[in-house]
């Protein structure tokens, strides 16, 4: 069902955890299946230097979270915002069609985390 890459990121997820001193936190949930992702980022000079996630969800939800946190590290906020769902799925070697809609929340959670960072900066 899942690609090897998905299985790898699911069984050995990267960047699991919370971040005590996060600069931004984003939470995204899919009301249908209940999948929920929380992404925390650390930002230095407009660049994401660290990212962590916690996810409630199926194999692909966990793999997507892991992949997004990997992809985002070292990117500027603009670059990070440009990461699409498709890009995450591609990086994972593809997702089953039904999972594209249901568990591919990583990019959304990331966007929320960046928004959270930006709104904190404004204060």
């Amino acid at each position, binding site marked *: 069902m*899942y690609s090897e890459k998905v*299985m790898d990121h*699911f*069984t050995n*997820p990267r960047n*699991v955890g919370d971040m005590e001193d996060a600069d931004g936190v984003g*939470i*995204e*949930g899919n*009301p*249908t*299946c*209940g*999948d*929920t*992702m*929380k992404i925390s980022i650390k930002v230095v000079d407009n660049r994401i230097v660290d990212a962590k996630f*916690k*996810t*409630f*969800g*199926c*194999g692909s*939800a*966990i793999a997507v979270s892991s992949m997004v946190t990997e992809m985002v590290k070292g990117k500027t906020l603009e670059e990070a915002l440009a990461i699409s769902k498709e890009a995450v799925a591609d990086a994972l070697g593809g997702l089953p069609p*039904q999972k594209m809609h*249901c*568990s591919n929340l990583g990019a959304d959670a990331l966007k929320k985390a960046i928004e959270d960072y930006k709104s904190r900066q404004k204060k």
Partner: protein
Amino acid sequence: MKKYYFDHVATNPLHPDVLEAMMPYFKEEFGNPLSIYEYGSKAKNAIEEAREKVAALINSKPAEIIFTANGAEANNFALRGIALAKQNEGKHIIVSRMEHHSILNSARFLEKSGFVVTYLPVDKKGFVSPDAVRKAITKETVLISVTHGSSEVGTIEPLKEIVKVAKEKKIIVHTDAVATTGNIPVDVKDLGVDLLSIAAHQFYGPKGAGALYVKQGMRIVPLIYGGIQESGRRAGTENVPAIVGMGKAAEMAKAELQMRMDYLKPLRDRIINTLTEEKNVFLTGDRENRLPGHVSFCVEFIEGEAMLLLLAAKGIFSASGSACSSKALKASPVLLAMGVPAGLAQGSIVFSLGMGNTSEDIDYLLKEFPAVISRLREISPFAQGWGDKDGGESCTVKK
């Protein structure tokens, strides 16, 4: 890697003796049972022998058994066949919320054809109350269908009491006994039902063979029209090998029923007793009135498909009623009907045991499963209660 198959509610392995009984009908005895010459009459006799064995398993007469391709066909046949036969007497049917898709979706089809359907509520353990049945009955009611046992939560329904209520009003009762037949005693006379569905692959028989018991004298409209197979009630060239296999499997199930229950129950109970010790792991379904090899939980804060995958990586094969693990992406309607909150239902996991499972298999499961739970909880944002605050609405159930 050794494999641990704990998904007998999905399907059972075929018993080698059953396969052996089937083999001649893949080879020399390939005839069409309708043919009047030797090949045909041997096939015909084999079918009638199988019919006797299936009938013996559920204490019916052979003529009351109509072979089908599987349990779903038997269920569709029962609901639509009786609804059509009885539509002039009334257009109301009653089904429970514990039913398999093949019942629920047949009921929905009937709704589109002008029937009114009452979906009976169930309690926390999945029991349909005879009283709810009584209240649901109207003058228009022509059929009540309540499952004998649930493959999702293992609960065995108080069918005799439900039949009693129905029979006060002389209403026809069907039961889906796909999950129970061959696993616990199923006796159509004792239960008092008019129709009952079974599937061979649920008791070590082959895929491709099911049956509908139809009480003698009951009129039913066919689902599959054509020739005069199955006394004109189900057309199509018979799947002779599968029917023969179903007969053999039924014969074995009858002979071994008590032994099988005695073997499975202690294994089942050990899993239940051990795992309900875990924090935030809830048994679903009833503790006592339960299929002998059936264990089902909801595990809080984590999701079913993720559990299945990590278990499978350990060689453990099981099932889940979570939305993400169903290909339809819907959480088990049975769990929801039982009042399990949507978030908790996502943590559904079902281990269903069979005669191939040993005590050592259970040791292994009991060692590996808690580790899987811990691992996923480490990843989960809810495990620390954060879900209460935000976003985790669906998973905030507490013990």
